């Protein structure tokens, strides 16, 4: 179990899991990570091991990908990574470089990289240096959504292989949802599980609503097991921990539909209806304790006679079941 105590705040999270920290700009998220990397006050400890904050900065074994994505100046990317790998006996960093899509950048000078490229190289440098904990400060803020998703998946995969824990600071809800087991909301000083944090997010931003469901096991033959029930899915990465079903992929039927190309049909109960605009409405559905969201039109809700407590059928295609 990791624990971090600083300025009266106290965080605890299990070894190997990721802690996400969200909050408005200027609330001190970056300062927190900087303090963990360089400061001396407080407690940062895994189990009963030494408090890392009592060690000099260069002996803490932290992999810090700073917000500025700072890299060693005036040298080629591979020179920097080779030196770091030699220092930390990380012999297989080329494999991780390939996974992060950095291989074509190795011959370039660090000063010539774009923002997104710098972030990916900084992430790899952090992975090479990390013996205890990864500190990721807005690590994919300069990448587009697809690339960010791919890079975070790759980092999560690498971290899982090495049983590394991580603290991820991000403004992007999707990034936190895709990677973290725990999310801390700085603004409300509240610490919540991902499911709780996600519910709060959906209430505040219904247009981004999506279901996040943990898997019971890895996908097999185009199916995943969720909540003890099989779901048909599209291709998923082998390291997928959760699946995401976006609200706009889900439709609702009043009666059990007949056979169709829509692979998944679940019997659900309506637990909430919230209007987003004149043409959009989010229906919150309960599936054996799991939340599912459907983005529909108010006209459809009226036609179906949707109301709280009504039992209906939710449908979504196999390819709507994406990794998260």
């Amino acid at each position, binding site marked *: 179990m990791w624990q971090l105590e600083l300025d009266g705040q106290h965080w605890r999270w299990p070894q190997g899991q990721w802690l996400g920290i969200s909050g408005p700009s200027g609330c001190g998220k970056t300062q927190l990570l*900087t303090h963990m990397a*360089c400061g001396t006050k407080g407690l940062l400890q895994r189990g009963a091991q030494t408090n890392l904050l009592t060690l000099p900065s*260069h002996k803490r074994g932290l992999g*810090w990908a700073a917000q500025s994505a700072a890299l*060693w100046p005036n040298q080629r990317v591979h020179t920097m990574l080779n030196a770091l790998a030699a220092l930390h006996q990380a012999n297989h960093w080329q494999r991780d470089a390939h996974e992060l899509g950095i291989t074509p950048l190795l011959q370039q000078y660090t000063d010539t990289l774009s923002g997104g490229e710098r972030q990916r190289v900084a992430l790899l440098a952090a992975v090479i240096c990390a013996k205890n904990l990864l500190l990721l400060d807005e690590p994919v803020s300069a990448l587009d959504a697809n690339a960010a998703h791919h890079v975070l998946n790759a980092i999560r995969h690498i971290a899982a292989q090495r049983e590394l824990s991580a603290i991820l600071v991000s403004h992007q809800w999707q990034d936190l949802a895709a990677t973290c087991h725990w999310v801390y909301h700085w603004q409300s000083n509240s610490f919540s599980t991902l499911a709780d944090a996600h519910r709060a997010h959906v209430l505040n931003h219904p247009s981004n609503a999506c279901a996040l469901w943990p898997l019971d096991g890895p996908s097999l033959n185009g199916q995943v097991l969720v909540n003890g029930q099989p779901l048909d899915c599209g291709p998923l990465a082998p390291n997928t921990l959760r699946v995401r079903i976006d609200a706009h992929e889900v439709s609702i039927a009043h009666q059990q539909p007949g056979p169709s190309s829509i692979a998944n049909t679940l019997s659900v109960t309506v637990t909430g209806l919230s209007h987003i605009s004149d043409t959009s409405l989010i229906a919150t559905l309960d599936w054996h304790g799991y939340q599912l969201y459907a983005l529909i039109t108010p006209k459809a809700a009226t036609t179906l006679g949707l109301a709280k407590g009504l039992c209906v059928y939710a449908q979504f295609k196999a390819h709507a079941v994406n990794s998260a």
Partner: protein
Amino acid sequence: MNAAIWITCKLALVTTLVLLVLGTPLAWWLAQGRSRFLRTLVEAAVALPLILPPTVLGFYLLLLLAPDGAIGQFSQSGLAFSFMGLVIGSVIYSLPFVVQPLAASFSQLDTRLLQLGRSQGLNPWQLLRHIVLPATCHAFVMAAALGFAHTVGEFGVVLMIGGNIPGETQVLSILLFDEVETLNFAQAHRIAGGLLAASFALLVVLYSWQKKRGHTRVAT
């Protein structure tokens, strides 16, 4: 004249090397040191040769390097009018030309980069090698070039503490003064023209390198 060229080059080279070795830690402390008041005092002392008449500096150095002076007493016959004395005088006289560009460059170093380097496991020596030197190499080249060129061009201090001993302390600027005094204008032209061309060429090479360096980085 060949002896004067050799002594001038030797003096400039030795002075530049000594200045880089001594000036680097001094510039680092000026840029990153904690005691603000002490830093201001040392900064002013380092900059003194920029505004002080060289003869004033030369006069006090002459007293210090004389056989019974504070420094000269440690050698058999004093350090004044010797090559070693010239080196000491040149180091002090050219100090701001090396320390100031280095300190300016060190103070512009991103502290977050240094913090990151430390957290990556770099000890102070590795931090210098992998981060500080690559980030400030242009300042080192500039400082070395300015230190070298300024030493080649010094006159007042050299005249005061080195005298004019051919083959030992007679540098090109002193030789030029000698030739003018004896109305040997042809030789004076050769020396003055040579110094002018060499100084101009050094600056052209320096600025070309700077431009090429910036261009290469962008184009790579």
